[in-house]
């Protein structure tokens, strides 16, 4: 079915497809490994085989999934799980606000926007915002196929981890998950192209680390981002 529809794509769409696959490949490698570990951990916690795959398919949120797993194994009820999901993913509010403004130039229907929102993660946001900032021509099909590749690899990792947990649990120490950190560092270097943005980044980093010393919480990233942006805007106003 896939190959049949691929033949009907015109040249531009096919090159979007290829380009997004190439650009998504570091995320795909990282996601596969992280989701694989998630799958193994779920099975070790005594959860059914379908659970990690379903979680990866429907929720698609890395840190929130691991937090939910920890809460489930400690016998928590629904409310703490939902609240921790809300706290951990609160940072996506800011990313989604940014994308709402930038996707105006891409031209996306409401349905495609909703589909895009489902695939919005830290890593896809990093790659897409850096691409949009550097004014590379970007189409809706590029963005959506990019997200689809990442999501498929996340689901495949969760499923493979669950299936392999009995046989491969001892082999999961490979370090391919550092691919995600390296990718984020690359994007950060590319994004911080003005003195203002470098300052905003430094303020955000310092705020997060300071808050981590007091209490490590998923909300720290949200607060630090707001503080960093606020400082950036104030300094811009006072200098202009």
């Amino acid at each position, binding site marked *: 079915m896939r190959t049949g529809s691929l033949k009907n794509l015109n040249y531009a769409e096919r090159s979007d497809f290829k380009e997004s696959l190439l*650009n998504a*490949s*570091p995320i795909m490698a990282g996601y596969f490994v992280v989701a694989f570990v998630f799958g193994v951990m779920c099975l070790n916690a005594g959860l*059914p085989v379908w659970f990690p795959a*379903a*979680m990866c398919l*429907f*929720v*698609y*949120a890395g840190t*929130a999934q691991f937090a*939910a797993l920890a809460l489930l194994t400690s016998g928590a009820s*629904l409310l703490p*799980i939902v609240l921790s999901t*809300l706290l951990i*993913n609160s940072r*996506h509010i*800011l*990313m*989604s*606000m*940014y994308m709402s*403004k930038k996707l*105006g130039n891409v031209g996306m229907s*409401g349905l495609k*926007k*909703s589909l*895009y*929102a489902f695939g*919005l993660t*830290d890593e896809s*946001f*990093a790659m897409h915002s850096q691409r949009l*900032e550097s004014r590379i021509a970007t189409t809706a099909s590029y963005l959506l196929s990019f997200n689809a590749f990442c999501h498929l690899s996340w689901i495949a990792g969760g499923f493979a981890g669950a299936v392999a947990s009995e046989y491969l649990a001892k082999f999961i120490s490979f*370090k391919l998950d*550092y*691919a995600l*950190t*390296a*990718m984020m*560092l*690359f*994007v*950060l*270097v*590319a*994004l911080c192209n003005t003195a*203002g*943005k470098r300052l*905003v*980044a430094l303020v*955000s*980093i310092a705020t997060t*680390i300071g808050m981590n010393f007091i209490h490590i919480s998923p909300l*720290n*990233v949200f607060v630090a*981002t707001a503080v960093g*942006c606020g400082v*950036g805007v104030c300094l*811009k106003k006072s200098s202009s």
Partner: protein
Amino acid sequence: MSQEIFLLIVIFSMMAVTFAIRLIPLHLSPERTPRFINAVIEYIPAAVISSITIPALFFPQNTGFSLYNASVLAALPVVFTAWFTKNLIVSVVVGVICQVLASHFIFG
């Protein structure tokens, strides 16, 4: 309630929360946002990506602070490579190799 039903409820409530957070701000119309918000939005990528990525290097597994570890050490060649080559794949490969080498030979 069987465990399987409870797990399904967990999955679908987490999906609802996660999707709502990603969906609602995306559908707010950007024309009506005040200029102040627009200025803030320009700084969001640098702020959010730096505060997700860099502090995590210094707090491995969300535990104590550590200034010198394999992930911090491997971050230096990644930044260096990213700056000079401007190539994503090369930077990622350099990072993974350096992190594996550092955690085996320096912190092993």
